[in-house]
């Protein structure tokens, strides 16, 4: 493999998964070899229990909840599923869920599978409070709304939802509904404890902020009626059965602490890098930003559409040039999949074919951005030259 293995790689797919932080690797190594089930009673079991509860305290502080509200899961998807279906399972028959049309599939699919409804978004992919109010009014006519789920930051575009305003709308128009905020794409860039303070349920996922894959957290605030989805044990206060992934959870907590500790600096620096990358990428003719100029977005994402170019061959050439990026959504086979987010935003389908996401993180450098621009420009040139 000569041409496909570039000497240096530029990783700009942090939103897909972020590199493991050294603090997390260290914590994992420390506890992966410890023998002890936290549900047991002997000394080694109690040690594992302490590690688990230390991690629980860490997340409670970072997410602004009581330690008892922290439920560890196998990842963001399980936490989202527990939030949506766990609430529906505990709700009166006939109750359903409401979410935006741009949710991650982890929310969207269970909402729709259980007969729920979606509310439309504006051109930037933002749920407008008046539109949510209207959606909840028409939902109320169809039956009781058990849970409303809001994606704090869109994983594809990086756009931020006005979470506080939307929660207020739910409280007014669907007072009986539980509010779930999917903060998976938000934790790196925003103080989730503050932005989700008014929500009942909050999801985060460790591998998005430098923890290991396979660890998620669902915050379940007091008073929320939630039925467990996994019922084969009493772990996590009966809300999630199964022996917890102690080493992974310890690593997740270490990554979360490190992320929160340098968040302010990282956001400022990465924002500058993202803008530099954007300037270079948008200077290529026919490349248009997916978000409008006034859209509120997080620092780490640059989403663009390339006119007249299909993102699939474009990603192939970027990859070959050592630049790891994404079209934002993909299916199990690895093929690029048409994005429901870009569709819901009303992007012209032809333009949407060229959807491309660069996502940055605390380890991204100026050189990464400059190299990515160079490879991107050459790839677009090449595809324009040979393909219609």
């Amino acid at each position, binding site marked *: *493999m*000569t*041409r*496909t293995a570039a000497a240096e790689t530029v990783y700009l797919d942090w939103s897909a998964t972020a590199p493991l932080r050294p603090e997390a690797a260290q914590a994992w190594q420390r506890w992966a070899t410890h023998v002890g089930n936290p549900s047991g009673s002997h000394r080694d079991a109690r040690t594992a229990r302490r590690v688990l509860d230390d991690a629980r305290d860490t997340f409670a502080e970072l997410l602004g909840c009581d330690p008892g509200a922290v439920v560890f899961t196998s990842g963001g998807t399980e936490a989202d599923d527990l939030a949506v279906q766990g609430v529906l399972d505990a709700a009166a028959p006939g109750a359903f869920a409401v979410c935006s049309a741009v949710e991650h599939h982890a929310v969207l699919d269970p909402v729709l599978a259980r007969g729920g409804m979606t509310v439309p978004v504006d051109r930037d992919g933002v749920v407008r409070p008046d539109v949510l109010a209207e959606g909840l009014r028409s939902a109320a006519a169809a039956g009781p709304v058990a849970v409303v789920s809001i994606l704090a930051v869109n994983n594809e575009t990086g756009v931020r939802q006005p979470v506080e305003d939307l929660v207020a709308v739910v409280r007014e128009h669907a007072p009986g509904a539980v509010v779930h905020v999917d903060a998976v794409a938000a934790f790196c860039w925003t103080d989730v404890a503050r932005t989700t303070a008014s929500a009942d349920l909050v999801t985060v996922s460790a591998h998005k902020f430098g923890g290991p894959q396979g660890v998620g957290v669902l915050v379940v605030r007091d008073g929320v009626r939630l039925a467990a989805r996994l019922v084969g044990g009493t772990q996590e206060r009966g809300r999630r059965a199964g022996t917890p992934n102690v080493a992974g959870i310890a690593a997740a907590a270490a990554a979360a602490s490190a992320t929160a500790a340098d968040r302010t600096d990282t956001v400022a620096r990465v924002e500058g890098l993202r803008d530099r990358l954007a300037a270079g990428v948008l200077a290529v003719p026919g490349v248009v930003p997916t978000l409008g100029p006034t859209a509120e977005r997080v620092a780490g994402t640059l989403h663009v559409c390339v006119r007249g170019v299909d993102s*699939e*061959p474009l990603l*192939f*050439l970027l990859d*070959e040039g050592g630049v790891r990026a994404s079209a934002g959504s993909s*299916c*199990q*086979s*690895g*093929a*690029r*999949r048409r994005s429901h987010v870009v569709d819901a935003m009303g992007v012209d389908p032809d333009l949407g074919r060229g959807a491309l996401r660069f996502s940055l993180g605390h380890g991204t450098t100026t050189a990464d951005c400059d190299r990515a621009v160079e490879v991107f420009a050459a790839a677009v040139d*090449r*595809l324009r030259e*040979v*393909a219609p």
Partner: protein
Amino acid sequence: MRVLVAMSGGVDSSVAAHLLHRDGHEVVGVTLRLWGGPADRGCCSVADVDDARRVADRIGVDHHVFDFAEAFETHVVAPYVADHVAGRTPNPCIECNRHVKFDLLVARAAALGFDAVATGHHARVVVRPDGTRRVGRGLDPAKDQSYVLHMLTGHVLDRLVFPVGDRTKADVRAIAAAAGLRTAAKPDSQDVCFIAGDGGRRTFLGERIPLRPARIVDLDGVEVGSVEAVQLVTLGQRRGLGLAGAAAGRYVVDVDVAGATVVVGPPEATLVREVVLGDPVWADGPPADGERVLVQCSAHGRVAVARVAHHPGAVALRWEEPQRRVAPGQSVVCYDADAPDEVLGGGTAR
């Protein structure tokens, strides 16, 4: 040479990738995602993508998945349904080759800087003394796929490689086994990849078009039976019509979807002198009027002799001996009478 190998997840394309890599070529495997429907089988299921990926891993080459589902829907599935509505008998694999594998994929490979595209088809690229190229039959007569590749010409053939075309199927499987490829004993794919085995064509079409019952009449117009779905009846069909008594053993000689009528007749009623080719494609230009050609009308059908007849605005083939009428929509492929393994071209029976 830098080659993009279309890997379906079957043994033939697995070995094609292996042989090219073994011979020192720079190989990248790609599996086409063609169909997102419920039929998780055939050439585009997740299980087959897994097989292709793991074979690529085993060989030590890169593997990608390209999503051509939209083009597949437009150029293969939609025409497949429309053909049934019109009473034709389509061959979707040929349309997939024509519009997806050897159009889109070849163009994309060129755009991505590949010198050639390889597939696991049992066929050969024949280079003629004058340098022009034609599709040739694969070495293994039982597996020959030149029929489904008859539309390949000129610039596409310049960029195509069929690494298993000069090997028998047994040989291919032996190579796969020796190389430790997990697809070595995988059964050959059958039938249409986007149609599930359990529901079949009836369920697939029934979800897309209203299937209409029809009466079956004999050549004198006497009603002899009925079918539940006229769109599923194929010209030349004999079985599955539920005919009894004197009508049993009759062949379908006409299908009138709009009039909801199927006409059956004795074997001799199916015979015709000529077949007209729709949208013909030729490797080196149309054969001359009166040229003698060898004609094949199904994937592994027997070959019959015909002479080319140029009609105003159409090309037809006049059979030396009357032949059963080819169902409209089926491909009619001509081979060179002087070089019986070489494809001259072909078209779709009108």
